[in-house]
């Protein structure tokens, strides 16, 4: 066989393989008869969790949107709040499944602020443009809706860790003092464990680690995060042992029934104020303050779904829901801490806690209260809560910003549980597992 023939045979063989490979890779397989949705609708659909605001203020805001027209007299497109579940995990499951299917079922999404990175990276969200006065939002809260320089979501309500204390109790001045006092924390196996453990890390030698965009090295995880969790673990086997069974509501119950101190979100304040045993007439038998420590910046954001058939109206609705008036109602009537500083009477140059000015619910709504009835929270109580909130917000930090937050928090919680149990998890294994989880890789301690 001549060299030319041999070369031609070789080239032919190579070309055939290349062609077959490309065909395998590029030609679509079996065509699936997917059922397409009808996206031709004008109504707006908001997807979120069960409305747990007091007086169902979220529903009330949606109702207002439906009743009030645009300034030029055009009616707002009708909006419906779809409440998926009480559970944040199940809300996430539904909203993510719908979004990744490319469905046009939802226009506005109510999301935990840790979902922004995942939903923005997945292409489920539309950049938000046209929301008025973004500078009025609390900057740290607004940043939780930003990804890769683009604003995808704005905060709807904000959470920070607050310290609740019984009458006559002096709140500890340090975080370790708080932990040693046996305060009611949330150390049951749910997201609250991640929150409380991160706060323990930040306030016990791991300041700034596992927060925001900055990714810790494995060395930092091993030498700074892990030892802080071990110290927390020792307390979880000691004075904090009851908190291992507690979520937020159990903590509120424990505090109402005698625990001297509690770390919890702002919504615990009106919940406690509704409890007869926590009141003496109009006076509350407990106080609230901002811990002198870093706490987690939580809360929920509003975003417009990428596949919304009505993106402009959806953006208008997001703007409406986050207007100062709505935020005031959510705070004074609904018990949710607001996302706009103006809702607390603050403005540029007047943003100190002492500048907080709020009104009780009945004054905002103009509603007459019945005989013998009063607002659950009067002006003084709301002001105290607002001041504690603004102070704590200045020290609050976001949780890790990653498109794989779900994997991170699941892994982190599993590791923390093992550390609490004294199950022999090593610092190296912890560092490797947490590091992998930030990239979405499965790992366990």
């Amino acid at each position: 066989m001549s060299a030319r023939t041999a070369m031609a045979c070789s080239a032919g063989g190579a070309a055939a393989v290349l062609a077959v490979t490309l065909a395998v890779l590029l030609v679509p397989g079996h065509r699936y008869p997917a059922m397409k949705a009808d996206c031709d609708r004008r109504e707006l659909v908001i997807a979120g969790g069960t409305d747990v605001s007091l007086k169902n203020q979220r529903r009330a805001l949606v109702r207002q949107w439906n009743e009030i027209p645009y300034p030029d007299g055009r009616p707002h497109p009708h909006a419906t709040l779809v409440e998926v579940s009480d559970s944040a995990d199940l809300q996430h499951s539904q909203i993510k499944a719908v979004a990744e299917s490319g469905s046009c079922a939802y226009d506005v999404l109510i999301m935990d602020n840790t979902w922004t990175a995942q939903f923005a990276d997945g292409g489920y969200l539309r950049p938000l443009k046209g929301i008025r006065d973004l500078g009025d939002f609390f900057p740290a809260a607004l940043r939780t809706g930003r990804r890769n320089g683009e604003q995808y979501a704005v905060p709807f309500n904000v959470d920070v860790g607050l310290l609740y204390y019984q009458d006559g109790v002096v709140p500890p001045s340090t975080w370790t003092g708080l932990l040693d006092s046996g305060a009611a924390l949330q150390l049951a196996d749910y997201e609250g464990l991640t929150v409380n453990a991160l706060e323990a890390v930040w306030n016990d030698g791991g300041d700034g680690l596992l927060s925001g965009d900055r990714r810790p090295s494995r060395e930092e995880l091993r030498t700074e995060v892990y030892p802080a969790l071990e110290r927390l673990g020792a307390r979880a086997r000691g004075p904090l042992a009851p908190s291992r069974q507690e979520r937020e509501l159990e903590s509120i119950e424990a505090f109402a029934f005698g625990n001297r101190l509690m770390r919890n979100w702002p919504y615990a304040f009106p919940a406690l104020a509704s409890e007869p045993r926590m009141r003496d007439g109009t006076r509350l038998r407990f106080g609230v303050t901002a811990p002198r420590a870093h706490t987690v910046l939580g809360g929920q954001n509003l975003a417009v779904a990428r596949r919304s058939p009505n993106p402009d109206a959806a953006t208008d609705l997001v703007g409406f829901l986050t207007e100062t008036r709505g935020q005031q109602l959510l705070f004074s009537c609904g018990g949710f801490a607001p996302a706009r500083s103006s809702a607390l009477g603050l403005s540029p140059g007047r943003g100190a806690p002492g500048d907080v000015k709020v009104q009780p619910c009945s004054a905002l709504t103009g509603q007459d209260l019945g005989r013998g009835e009063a607002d659950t929270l009067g002006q003084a109580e709301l002001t105290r809560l607002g001041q504690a909130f603004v102070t704590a917000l200045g020290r609050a930090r976001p949780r890790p910003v990653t498109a794989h937050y779900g994997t991170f928090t699941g892994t982190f919680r599993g590791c923390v549980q093992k550390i609490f149990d004294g199950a022999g998890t090593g610092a190296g294994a912890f560092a490797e597992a947490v590091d992998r989880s930030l990239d979405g890789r499965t790992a366990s301690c």
Partner: protein
Amino acid sequence: MTQRENGDSDGWVRELPHVLVIDLASTLLISLGVTLLHHGFWLNAAVTLVVIAALTTGFLYSLRHLPDTVRGRTTRALRRSGPGVMWAMTGAGAMGLILLVAIGVHRLHASTRPCGQPLELRVLTTPETLTPLRAAAAEFVNDGASGGCRRYGVSVVPETGPVPLYDGFGRLWRRSASTDARQADDERLFGPQPDIWIPSSTAEYAFVPKSPEPAGAAAEGGAFGSRGGGAGAPGRGDPYFRPRGSLGSSPLVLALFAKANQAVANPVAAPVQPSTAALLRRVHDAGVRLKGIARPVPETSAAALAVTPALYGARPGGDESDERFVSPASLVSPDAASLLCRFRKEASQGAEPPDGFAVAVPEQALHDYDVGRPLGDDRRCGAVDPNDRSIAAWRLYPYYSRDLPTLDYPFVQVRWRGQDTPARNAAVTAFRRWLDRVPLTSQGFRDASGVRASADEGDSEHVTLSRLSGLVGEHALPYSVSPVPPEGVQETLDRVAAARPRVSASLMLDVSDSMGAAARVRGGARLARGASFLQSLVAQLQVGDRVGSQVSSSAASPAGEAFGNVPPDAASPEQKNLIIGRLQAVASAGADRPLIDAIAAADLGSGRQDLVLVTDGQVPATNPDLAGRARWLAGEFRGRHPGLRLTVVLTGPAGCGASPVREIVSALGPGGARCVPLTAAPEEEQAAEILAGLR
């Protein structure tokens, strides 16, 4: 050996290097193909090379034994084409190698980057199968991970029973559909819309409304299994179901606590009794006097519904007395997991097991209970040590009979318009295939024919029924149980409804401003908790029942045109939907209306009537002259409504001992009124308990 034979022999030896080059190239190509489609190049390559080399060597060697003419022709053909094929294969192999290296580099690069997003699968199943399904789903997710990156995420959530499911699938998974001209501002879902539904039985699957198959699917030659009925199908034609076979089976059993079991157990008796009647006779003959059989509420538990006809048929007398026997008031639970969870909680508190009761649950749920696995979705029922003394004291021992039905757990794909994509379909298929490879027999189920799986030695990851037999005795657990399909859901529901006293319930919800404050349990507003409780109660009513609703505050008169007021009528699906929708939409407004005034304004009929009043309590100032009003309630009002029973349900903060609830309950007497505080237990469970009390 002749010279010619030697020459031919040398010939195939000379061809051997060419052939081996072809083998090597073939190996590379096959491996490329396998790598593109599956993964694991080097193992594939080694296996392929060995197989091909063995085949070709064998082929060439076999040439020696062919007839001369055939052998000569074959050898000549090989000599002519051999070099060309060899060069072509060399080129192809080289290209294969280049592509494999490129794929390797790409994968190496990918392994250093963050993972992509796993596709989210939503699975719906019965409360008692949550634990095995969650364990299986977690294993599936981990098995499917590549380089530590998960391809799928799976959420497994509990269903709320056949009756609510019927409504849910008929209303695009909403708890209520708007029947008013006014559009709803707010809707609640039953949770995530399932991609996969694993009901307890084919009968449960057959019960829910179904739409005709979509046009695209019809073109597929009927790949979509269900087109059942269409009766009751929602107007929008969603969702579509595709049953994909049974995942295993589990017979329903009657179980006894240790004390009764000691009396009844007999190692020489047949493990499966001919009938439930015979089984109950055996229990009776052993000296055990059963006061009742704890069976969960049929409307919220398909397993309970399935076992009901067998229980009705096992005792002499009519269905009415049988129904009372299988609904002991102290053991009402919405499903088997809740019932067993309640036992476990009492066990952990050191209580003694209830005397004189048997329990009717699926064998698989009993397995999870006895071996100490988590039960249902109640986080207070996590894993326990089955050998702990207090837990072991509450161990249940299963008994079988030939007429107790078997649950067959069909795997049903659910397709929702707009969420139905090739990727989602592929993920559902992957999970289904995985469950074929790792069947639920490794999670306490039997196979589809009712046979127990044996445990693999050294496999500590899975829990077969062998672990249960280790606890209750090998003889107690039959090796095989012939499957008996349950009767139809609607037929049994009708039979249960006929056997029960009918309920005529007037629901009243306090919507005063204070109901907007925080609920004492489970968070959220009192109004939301109260409304949600009433919605659960309405969902569990049957067609033979009657129901109406009213709201009460200074701004919403129970007797007026308030939005939440729905006149009493038969509890048809339409009436239930209307009430559930109105309850969803009510808002708190106005001051308290005195409770006795609200009761007086209730829309009550004649005869036996139940008024369920949900409130957070009231301050004394709202109820002036309480003593005088209470006397009126006990006298004139009671005379007008002798058949009325009042149930005050408190959301907190007021307790049952607080005024004015205490005085009102007292005025109507012990048989005429009671007070029940809402607790942290699931609303379905609390509604089931109160409804059982009404019946």
